[in-house]
């Protein structure tokens, strides 16, 4: 009797392990499938991008929606980021007797890393989810199929314009966010200290070099492309009705945020290899 129980327990545990490994293998397979599918989707975007007709009006419209409409949110976060960073750094800078270097350090931190990455993450949160949800709802309500039937290329109209708009607008937003952050930092310096406006900006610009600005500027194009393409991919291949729409929006934000960090890591390695650091 006891022997039968132990044999049954053993069989159950083996079944559990087997099921778990099966699940892992399915997850791994689905991950690779997802990566492959996303790569294929990106390739399709690149191939469609150069072929006319060009949806210029839609591109401008998306630039307005993705870029201009994101400015208040990005600007506000940038301003708070600059202000808080300065206020947090200030006591330590005073302890080390290098308070005068505060604008230079905040300037380098914002321009090189914090500005582009935080802006991209905010952008991913706002635009990635909006693209994912918009295209997902169009997919589940079969609007995309309807466009195909009506002779409009949905991929070109919906995907290319949005990805291009995201790619072009994120650098613009990042630059404006940097400027607003630095202004926030200036106010942060002036809350407890007293620094002349011109002197603050001269100190910031004096500490910066092209090797600080250029890699940070260039990587935002890749971040923008990643947010756009992932958002579109998740929305374009959305399924399972309204539940799928929410899932697409959510996974678009998560994946594009992770992708931003991965690309940032790659950018650091590449700039290191090129001798920019």
């Amino acid at each position, binding site marked *: 009797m006891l022997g039968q129980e132990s044999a049954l327990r053993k069989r159950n545990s083996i079944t559990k392990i087997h099921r778990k490994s099966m699940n892992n293998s399915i997850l791994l397979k689905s991950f690779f499938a997802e990566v492959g599918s996303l790569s294929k989707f990106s390739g399709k975007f690149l191939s469609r991008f150069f072929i006319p007709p060009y949806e210029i*009006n839609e591109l*401008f*419209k998306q*630039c*307005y929606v993705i*870029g*201009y409409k994101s*400015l208040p949110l990005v600007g506000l976060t940038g301003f708070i980021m600059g202000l808080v960073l300065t206020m947090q750094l200030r006591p330590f800078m005073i302890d080390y007797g*290098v308070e005068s*270097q505060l604008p230079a350090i905040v300037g380098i931190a914002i*321009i090189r890393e914090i500005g582009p990455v935080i802006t991209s993450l905010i952008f991913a949160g706002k635009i990635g989810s909006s693209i994912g949800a918009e295209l997902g709802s169009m997919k589940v309500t079969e609007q995309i199929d309807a466009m195909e039937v009506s002779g409009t290329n949905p991929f070109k109209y919906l995907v290319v314009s949005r990805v291009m708009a995201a790619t072009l607008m994120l*650098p*613009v*937003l990042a*630059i*404006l966010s*940097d*400027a607003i952050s630095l202004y926030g930092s200036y106010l942060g310096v002036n809350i407890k200290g007293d620094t002349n406006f011109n002197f603050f*900006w001269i100190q910031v*610009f*004096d500490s*910066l*070099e*092209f090797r600080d*600005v250029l890699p940070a*500027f260039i990587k935002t194009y890749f971040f923008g492309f990643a947010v756009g393409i992932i958002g579109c991919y998740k929305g374009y291949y959305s399924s399972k009705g309204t539940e799928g729409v929410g899932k697409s929006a959510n996974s678009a934000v998560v994946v594009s945020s992770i992708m931003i960090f991965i690309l940032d890591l790659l950018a650091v390695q590449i700039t290191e290899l090129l001798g920019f650091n």
Partner: protein
Amino acid sequence: MGKQIFNNIKLGIFILASLAFLILLFYMIGKNRNFFGSNFTLKSRFENVQGLKIGNNVRYAGIDIGSVNKIEVLNDTVLEVEIIIENKMKKIIRNNSIVSIGTDGLVGNKVVNITSTKLNAPLVKEDDILSSRRPIDTDDLLRTFSKTNNDIYLIAKNLKKTTFDFNQSNILWKLLNDNSIVENIHLSLSNLHSASIEINNIVKNANSIMDHIKSGNGSIGTILYDTAFTLSIKNTLNNVNNISNSAIKLSDEAKETIKNINYELMKGDGAFNKLLKDSITGVTITSSIKNIENGTRAFNLNMEALKHSFLFRGYFKKSSKKN
């Protein structure tokens, strides 16, 4: 349609604002790195550049005038640093200026400092190589700091011991608590003050005397500053000199005369020579002296007899009364 145009305008402003900031950023960085405007290059050679990097600032009298353009290793001991400098500095920097590598603050970036020397020299030209000064080695600096620190430690230790001894010493505390010492010191200081006043007066008097002397008054003044007196002394000294010369001459003549007399005494035919050298004359003289002695004795007898003579007795009595 109208709304879309309005949206496009807003988008345009948004993009232009971003571009403007980007251009400003690039312009300011470029300006700091001398990418715009006309520049010229100078070079300098170092053994060690102490972590200097391309793009570090170049300063002349504390003003940023350029940046480091290239750092090249010429051989195992020499590195050539090429710097870009604003063209307007061509009229100021001379080719005997010294280039050194310093630090912007204690923990700041490295900077190249150009220091002018006070010597005159021609102005710099494109690609001139300026002489360099060995940069301050941070390790050397730290070593010196460490040594100074040790010295301070020893001083502090000694001071601690001294303070301890001082606290332990009853005599010192007694001295410190003794009010009479303070009074004595006060008195001494007062005396010192009086003495200094006296010294001051003495010095004043001495100055007055010196002024008096300088104005030529008094004996010392006359001696030191009266030209007529000096001339008189000079004349007197000349006279003394002449007298001295005459005395020397006289002495020489006397010497000659004595020499002649001596010669005459020794070798001449005169009476003295005969007196000294001629034995016959000596005998004659001895005999003559004897005769004189005899004559004198006889004369004395005669005189004695004369005294007792009645003819002259009166005269001798008168002369003895007079005496």
